[in-house]
């Protein structure tokens, strides 16, 4: 019964989304203001139906209903409750439904937010969101229905992909999708503004908090995925330039450019057409990211549900949404004129450079991700693009960007008065360089090279960003949340650069075979292998290793790397043993059983690695703070503070 109810709710949701799109877009276009009254009920009804469908799928998982094909494929009678719930988005069909649910959450939050805006404009925003939802619902019902029955029912399920049986990965897709979907709001505002021909500064101001919140969610989602890869995949890396990672990173880069260009548009009425284009591109890349994984076009470790038939539908949807948006842009953007001028060293030109560098960075990632596909399509054979391409090409725009931010935080709108502010820039730069030199020569050791440059840049950015806020506090001035958020994000970028540089340059690593009682010496620590014992989990068995770590004869910690064999899918997973000590991670992963009590072990000492994720979390916090600034709250009803709206959509 429940699956049928869910299926029925999805069909109703599709119809209501169609009504929401129709009334939202047609009422203002045809000037029928009475139709506007239908937009809100359709929106609310769609959200209720989507929530009902989602609840039905969750219930089918919780109740072990193996007569539902999707449940039988992704769950098992031995699967613990939390993973039965996470299994809802463990594969293609359910993750699409999750996407739709999150879109409904954002839409409801926007519906409250736009109630203070001009009614026609608000209707158009909701209409565009309805259109996006309609496309996704149609796709789900036509090609990926999660409620299909299996007759006769399966006696037991095939279990959730063991890679996904992990708390961080249970949360990773919802957060990532919240970010992806959040860019739909910026997209809807941009389309509504273009349809309306109302491209004043107001729309940038309305769009900004939503975009900041979406960007912050996307940041957390990406960081969580990276953290998971670090301790679960057992290779000790945290970023692999895998196509799917890139697919989430490209909207992030463009989204970062967007939140900066929105600032220039809001404050100074500049870059209007460019900001519109970025809003379209950020969401287009989110759509592309959602779909590249699903269509089987790009082969990657993530594509567990590749199906060309879906690919055709997806492509048609992309052509309608993105092609339509870009055509609208080509038609409307020429009408935009900027009347404001600015001097060379003003904040405007720094934001322009920031945008150029971020877009170049996104383009290099895009090029590397699409190159295999293009070479394949052109018949040039299979091409594989890895870190050898991405690492150097990505650094090229990013290092100048860090320097740019360190200078730009002292610039003013309109006027190039930077020479008057050069003292803090130069002083913080010199102090940063001194810190970097001291770290490289005195503490880490080794010859100074690129690491010195990027450490100095990172330290410079941290110090330089703090100068103004500290100065304001000393003079007893208040700090608005927007400034705190911005400062936090810029400091976090500096910390991020320092952490990544340190991890990449100063990791000590060894792959070694040890018998019980033998010791390996890595990076000043002694790792004594105490052998393995067998373990028994709810749906897996495996071995559990013990490694005593000591330094100068003093015991430090005992690490417990595991190797689990998941029974139903017969796949082997590694769980690395990790301890954080004085800013560095001691990492041991269990490799192969070499027989006679010998095991291969991967031992790594990674300094500052936790600060990589901590920095991204700080950036996200900065984004949330800026999104909840008083300026945006006063413009709308008190209940629709963007920060709260954002939190609501994860629940």
């Amino acid at each position, binding site marked *: 019964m429940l699956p049928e109810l869910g299926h029925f709710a999805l069909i109703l949701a599709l119809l209501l989304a169609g009504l929401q799109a129709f009334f939202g877009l047609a009422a203002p276009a045809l000037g029928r203001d009475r139709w506007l009254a239908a937009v809100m009920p359709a929106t609310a009804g769609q959200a209720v139906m989507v929530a009902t469908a989602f609840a039905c799928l969750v219930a089918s998982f919780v109740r072990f209903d193996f007569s539902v094909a999707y449940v039988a494929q992704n769950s098992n009678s031995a699967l613990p409750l939390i993973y039965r719930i996470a299994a809802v988005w463990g594969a293609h069909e359910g993750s699409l439904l999750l996407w739709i649910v999150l879109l409904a959450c954002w839409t409801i939050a926007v519906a409250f937010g736009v109630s203070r805006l001009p009614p026609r404009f608000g209707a158009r925003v909701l209409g565009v969101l309805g259109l996006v939802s309609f496309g996704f619902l149609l796709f789900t019902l036509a090609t990926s229905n999660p409620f299909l029955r299996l007759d006769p029912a399966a006696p037991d399920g095939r279990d959730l992909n063991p890679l996904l049986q992990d708390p961080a990965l249970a949360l990773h897709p919802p957060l990532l999708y919240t970010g992806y979907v959040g860019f739909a709001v910026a997209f809807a505002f941009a389309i509504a503004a273009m349809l309306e021909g109302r491209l004043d500064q107001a729309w940038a101001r309305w769009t900004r908090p939503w975009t900041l919140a979406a960007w912050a969610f996307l940041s957390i989602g990406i960081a969580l995925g990276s953290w998971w890869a670090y301790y679960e995949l057992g290779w000790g890396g945290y970023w692999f330039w895998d196509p799917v990672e890139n697919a989430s990173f490209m909207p992030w880069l463009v989204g970062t450019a967007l939140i900066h260009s929105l600032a220039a548009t809001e404050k100074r009425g500049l870059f209007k057409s460019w900001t519109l284009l970025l809003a379209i591109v950020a969401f*287009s890349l989110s759509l592309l990211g959602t779909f590249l994984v699903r269509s089987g*076009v790009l082969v990657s470790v993530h594509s567990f549900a590749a199906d060309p038939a879906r*690919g055709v539908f997806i492509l048609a949807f992309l*052509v309608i949404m993105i092609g339509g948006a870009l055509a609208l842009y*080509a038609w409307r953007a020429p009408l935009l004129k900027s009347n404001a001028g600015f001097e060379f060293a003003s904040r405007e030109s720094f934001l322009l450079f920031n945008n150029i560098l971020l877009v170049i960075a996104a383009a290099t990632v895009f090029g590397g991700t699409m190159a295999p*596909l293009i070479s394949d399509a052109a018949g040039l054979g299979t091409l594989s693009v890895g870190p050898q391409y991405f690492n150097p090409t990505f650094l090229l725009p990013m290092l100048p960007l860090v320097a740019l931010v360190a200078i730009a935080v002292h610039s003013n709108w309109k006027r190039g008065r930077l020479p008057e502010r050069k003292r803090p820039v130069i002083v913080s730069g010199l102090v940063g360089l001194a810190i970097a030199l001291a770290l490289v020569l005195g503490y880490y050791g080794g010859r100074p090279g690129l690491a010195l440059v990027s450490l100095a840049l990172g330290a410079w950015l941290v110090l330089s960003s703090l100068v103004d806020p500290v100065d304001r506090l000393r003079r007893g001035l208040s700090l608005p949340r927007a400034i705190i958020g911005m400062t936090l994000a810029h400091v976090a970028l500096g910390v991020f650069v320092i952490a990544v540089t340190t991890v990449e340059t100063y990791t000590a690593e060894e792959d070694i075979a040890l018998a019980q009682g033998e010791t390996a010496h890595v990076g000043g620590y002694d790792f004594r292998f105490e052998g393995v014992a067998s373990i028994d989990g709810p749906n897996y068995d495996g071995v559990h290793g013990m490694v005593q770590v000591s330094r100068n004869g003093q015991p430090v910690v005992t690490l417990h790397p595991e190797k689990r064999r998941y029974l139903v*899918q017969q796949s082997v997973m590694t769980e690395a043993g990790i301890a954080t000590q004085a800013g560095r991670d001691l990492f041991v992963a269990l490799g192969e059983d070499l027989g006679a009590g010998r095991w291969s072990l991967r031992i790594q000492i990674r300094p500052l690695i936790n600060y990589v994720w901590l920095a991204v979390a700080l950036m996200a916090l900065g984004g949330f703070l800026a999104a909840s600034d008083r300026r945006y709250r006063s413009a709308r009803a008190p209940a629709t503070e963007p920060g709260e709206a954002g939190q609501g959509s994860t629940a």
Partner: protein
Amino acid sequence: MNRFLLPLAAFVLLAIVLAIGIRQSNTKGIVVSPLIGRAAPEFVLPNLLDATKRFDSRVMKGRWYALNVWGTWCIECRVEHEVLVAARQEAKLPIVGLNWKDEDTEARAWLAQLGNPYEAVPVDAEGRVAIDYGVYGAPETFLIDPRGVIVYKRIGPMTPEIWQREFVQRAAGAS
């Protein structure tokens, strides 16, 4: 030209590349297995359909045949089952069904209920033979030539088109 048309033009190019990519992904189902072109591992296993005799893979020498790895716990196997049953009725290429990590009673009930597409059903209860064949998930189907060499491997459920194009026609074309 209107410079604001450039994004649209770039997107059209991208859409064309994606369309070609989707077309080609139809043929990407062939995962190159290191076993293709090598001799199929030989095995002797209990026979599900006849408890008195063991199944020796060498009896298939001299004929083209398909080796299908299946289990009653495998959802996609159910999806492909009717394709295999239809293939047996067509009688162009015999199928051996390696029953992988399954319960004998359930496997027999499955064949009784849904029809038996297999000429023989060796029982690989512990999954040793499947490991030799590099199986990483059911269903998988191998095409084996009269010399006992693996010619082709299909991962995932069989479809009538793949069965005709990749299995029946290859076997007919070569002999």
